[in-house]
């Protein structure tokens, strides 16, 4: 990674921290401690399940919201504040700006996820008194959540490279929702015929498949995640995020900024 990309990434990270993005950790900490203490009193036999399900769901949703709402402003904010012109007047390529922004936000999300993961494991220790070997699968679920963030961040950047922040948020959120139904979409496509089938299948493959990246329920039940799936998901997320980033770079390269 070039030094210029690294600088843009670290500035993006610093800016996110300055914007108090990490304050969501306080809400998360309250949520986890509340769940860990209360659930044993209001339910039966699901203390550990709730800590994992609630913890990982919150990590995922908090992160998706941050990825979308920060991601959509990464380009437009720089244009509005006219700081983009200062950056681009230096020896910085447009693609380096987009890639740097991507890594900056991805880094913010990884740091955020790291602290949330500490909270999940602390709550898990509180309810179970000790760790099980199967708790290691929670780390895999967290890794998949980070892969999900990479895809959403890249998509948010893609939309923000040509659209207004509001529309970018709508597009990114819609793709997140559709992505959770990706497997159903492919199922529907399989039931159609002719040209509809081609179009439906194409659309089903175009939207991100986020359902395969969600193994929260499985790890909550201590079910192992196959190594092959970890590899395939990693490759898929990297390829899909790269595709979205390439799209963002292409559009941004040709955008008239005057």
């Amino acid at each position, binding site marked *: 990674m070039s030094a210029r990309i690294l600088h843009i990434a670290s500035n993006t990270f610093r800016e996110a921290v300055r914007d108090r993005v990490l304050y969501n950790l306080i809400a998360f900490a309250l949520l986890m401690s509340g769940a860990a203490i209360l*659930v044993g009193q*209001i*339910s*039966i*036999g*699901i203390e550990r*399940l*709730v800590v*994992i*399900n*609630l913890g990982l*769901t919150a990590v*995922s*949703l908090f992160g998706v919201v941050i990825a979308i709402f920060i991601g959509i402003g990464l380009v437009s904010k720089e244009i509005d504040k006219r700081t983009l012109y200062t950056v681009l007047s230096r020896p910085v390529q447009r693609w380096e700006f987009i890639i740097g922004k991507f890594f900056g936000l991805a880094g913010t999300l990884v740091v955020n996820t790291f602290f949330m993961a500490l909270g999940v494991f602390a709550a898990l220790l509180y309810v179970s008194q000790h760790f099980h070997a199967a708790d290691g699968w929670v780390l895999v679920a967290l890794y998949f959540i980070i892969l999900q963030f990479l895809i959403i961040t890249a998509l948010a950047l893609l939309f923000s490279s040509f659209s207004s922040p509001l529309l970018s948020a709508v597009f990114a959120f819609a793709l997140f*929702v559709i992505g*959770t*139904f990706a497997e*159903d979409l492919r199922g529907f496509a399989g039931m159609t015929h002719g040209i509809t089938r081609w179009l439906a299948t194409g659309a089903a493959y175009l939207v991100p498949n*986020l*359902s395969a990246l*969600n193994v*929260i*329920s499985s790890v*909550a*039940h201590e*079910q192992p995640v196959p190594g092959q799936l970890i590899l395939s998901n990693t490759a898929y997320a990297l390829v899909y995020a790269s595709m979205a980033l390439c799209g963002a770079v292409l559009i941004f390269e040709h955008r008239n900024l005057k």
Partner: protein
Amino acid sequence: MSCLAGSVLLLRRIDRQRTGATLEEVLYISSPKLLKHLSLGYDGLLADIYWTRAVQYFGDKLDKGAEHYDLLGPLLEITTTLDPHLLVAYEYGTNFLAANGGQPRRAIQLSEFGIRNNPNEWRLYYGLGFVYYLDLKEYGNAADAFLRGSRLPDAHPFLKVLAAQMAERGGDIQTARMLWATTYQTTKDRDIRGNAAAHLRALQVDDDVTSLEKLVSHYRDKTGHLPQTFSDLEAANLLRGTPVDPLGHTYKLMPDGRVEVRVPDDLPFIQKGTPPGYIPPKPKFKPED
């Protein structure tokens, strides 16, 4: 702060005016499949929420001594469709539905759904056999359920014994004792354990009262009159010491020769040893069990 305090006070006032409104028996979305889709893949958390709701609903109804548990079945169906591997929902849900909810057939459906999704969990077969045995008195089906469960590699050894007992002599007291003892030993939940302990105490009382009344009858045959106290039975070498119930209270010998417990309310589920016309209160288990 004063506005917040004011809004809290007003809300409490509104709650008093709309009694029961917050616990209204309504399922806003009753389709488990639709809920699964709406969960956006976070179905595990939603299942936990619905399970908690089922537990709260059951507890609230039980506390109020309700006779109908209309929402219990749908809540459990939603819970288990959202998360088919949520074993607690089957283990306790069948118990809730059959024992208190008065819906043993629905409990069987729930159990069978659980077994289809978790075929290697012997506890689910145990729960199924339990409902067949205790609530439906279908001993053949109970034996079949225990037998299916006993074939699993990590099944509790008692399942084989239960299957045999059930096939041989379904409704006897020894079989019932064995079932409740197995539940008591294997459950991790203190309420279920308390329930099993209460049933074991009740079986002990039923056994004691039957034996004592036999002794009274034997005494009458021997002497031509009923004993006045247990001391008369002791004097006739039929009894050693004053008999006590599982809670440590002495049994009462009634003038007509019946044997009664001193505090029937403390011994839920007893079939014998209660005063004529006695209506038992809703069972409350002793948490220390």
